[in-house]
């Protein structure tokens, strides 16, 4: 019976198959079963750390000290979550991450698409130079520039008590400006948008020009609606990068009400030290929103990675 459900897994039957011996077919079916078993085992292995996180997050703390610890928690203790929320302002952290990630998504979609469209479809003198610059930027790791960016933010003139020369105060440190502005437009997203627009038909642009549509109108109302899945892909990838960002928020925020969730988890680790049931509850809260977003919009995430990889 189990083999019946496996039938669709077999390679498409070719016309000569009927002529082959049944032992060969059985061998193929056996092979398909082996592949399925291998995939089930290895994907369980891949998911095991997440299962362990979830199990630990509902574990009674007394079990943590028990040797041997029962693998499956004896009862479901959701108080771990309320306890974790009481110990650290995870709601505030999550709100901050949400704002940061949303801003990254909106800004990348708005400015990334504009630049990507111009590079893909409009002929202007600086286009090759701009394109080369964007590709070069993709190669430059954030970690190589993080110190100067930090210094620029700290010496932002006329902010945070700074003089017009950027001295004397703290500039943008511990402000939303610092969190959002320096990373607002990713050259990778510009590149991705260019790839999406390249696949759109240029005849539409010519036709719209004959109709007297403005250049901005062509970009915003004719060409961009054609790459709606691409917009969603960039929005999701930017959101993910914003939500998962760690080093930059760690460097530029000091107050609790600007702290994002990844930094919050790291500081909660000091605070809760060996209370693993609370730490795993907090980690679950930091990880689950992205997992849900991925499950819902899987296709668009995958499209983004595929497009960036192959074209």
């Amino acid at each position, binding site marked *: 019976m189990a083999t019946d*459900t496996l039938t669709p*897994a077999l390679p498409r039957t070719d016309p000569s198959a009927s002529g082959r011996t049944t032992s060969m077919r059985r061998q193929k079916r056996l092979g398909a079963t082996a592949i*399925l078993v291998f*995939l*089930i085992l290895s994907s*369980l292995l*891949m998911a095991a*750390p*997440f299962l*362990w996180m979830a199990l630990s997050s509902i574990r009674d703390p007394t079990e943590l000290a028990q040797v*041997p*610890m029962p*693998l499956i928690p004896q009862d479901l203790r959701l108080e771990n979550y309320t306890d974790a929320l009481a110990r650290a302002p995870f709601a505030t952290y999550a709100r901050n991450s949400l704002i940061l990630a949303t801003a990254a998504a909106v800004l990348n979609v708005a*400015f*990334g698409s504009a630049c990507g469209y*111009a590079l893909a479809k*409009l*002929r*202007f*003198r*600086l*286009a090759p130079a701009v394109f080369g*610059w964007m590709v070069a*930027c993709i*190669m*430059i*790791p954030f*970690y*190589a*520039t993080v*110190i*100067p960016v930090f*210094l*620029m933010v700290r010496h932002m003139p006329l902010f945070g008590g700074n003089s017009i020369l950027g001295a004397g105060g703290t500039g943008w440190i511990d402000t939303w400006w610092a969190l959002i502005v320096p990373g607002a*437009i990713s*050259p990778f997203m*510009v590149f991705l948008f260019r790839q999406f627009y390249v696949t759109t038909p240029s*005849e539409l642009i*010519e036709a719209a*020009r*004959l*109709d*007297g549509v403005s250049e*901005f*109108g062509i*970009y915003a109302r004719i060409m961009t609606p054609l790459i709606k899945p691409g917009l969603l892909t960039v929005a999701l990838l930017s959101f993910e990068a914003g939500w998962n960002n*760690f*080093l930059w928020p760690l460097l530029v925020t000091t107050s609790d009400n600007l702290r994002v969730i990844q930094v919050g*988890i*790291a500081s909660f680790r000091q605070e809760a030290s060996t209370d*693993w049931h609370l730490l795993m509850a907090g980690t679950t809260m*930091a*990880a689950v929103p*992205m*997992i849900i977003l991925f499950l819902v919009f899987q296709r668009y*995430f*995958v499209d983004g*990675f595929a497009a960036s*990889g*192959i074209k």
Partner: protein
Amino acid sequence: MSTSTHPTPPPADAPAAHRAPVPRRSTVRAAEKRWGLLLAAPATLHTLLWIGVPIVVAIVLSFTAYDIIHPPEFAGLENYATIFTDGLFWRSVWHNVLIAAIGIPISMLLALVFATLLNRALPGRGVFRVMVFLPHITATVAVAMIWLWIYNPSENGLMNIILGVIGIGPLPFLTDPDLALGAVILVTIWQGIGLKMLIYLAALQGVDGQLYEAADIDGANFVQKFHRITVPMLRPATFFILITSLIANFQTFDLIYILTEGGPANSTSVVTYRIYQTAFQEFRVGLANAQSVILLLILIVLAFLSRRIVGGTDGD
């Protein structure tokens, strides 16, 4: 309602709409040039300011002694001389090399195996793909927290529970200098498979099925088909994965920050963590910038090297 948003264009030689006069070609060209520049400007200026300027500043500061409090002073090549003899910095580079040399081939191989197996109609195909990809989509901080708990040195750490079954341990994975780097590498493999698998899957879907059919007719077996068709056809994807993995590897930071803080006894320090310490803990900003410049040079060399080794994405 307006015809302008209608997706199908009129035939090119059909008379244009009567309400608007046909714009002159030269005016159209001028508008195209102007809007090209206008639309590209925000992203270009932003990256010039927040990537271009910092690169220049990093290079300039790398020739200075700077402690954030006092203004930077010109120091010539002193920082680079310091780096040259800085054992800890090169040890950190070496750790990156080890993580890459061990972790990337293993996760690429596993990714290729998964992609090959998943590139067919299979019950639960989507579920497998999601489970393999989840570690990539999850924040590295969260991933590191989970593994910190898995590597817990007590009998109740998951890894020690597993090793206990075969009578080993408990082992202090992250506090034993001989084990810590291996423990880090295992996490990078686990986290790295998903993205590599996705790129391989997309590449496999681009391989012409007729090639395999022709090979079948010629009586090629699975290994021959894999070796003669799949591997050559996946060369551009392999190059892309290798280069992005190398770049990503030299940017490993969050994982080290949470798991080991570079320890024990600096046995897991990596370049980015060393730069972070130099700049934000020791306040030797000039030196840290020189280290950043070295990191950038390493990445540029790696990009060229891997292009030579794998053969590149174009030309062949």
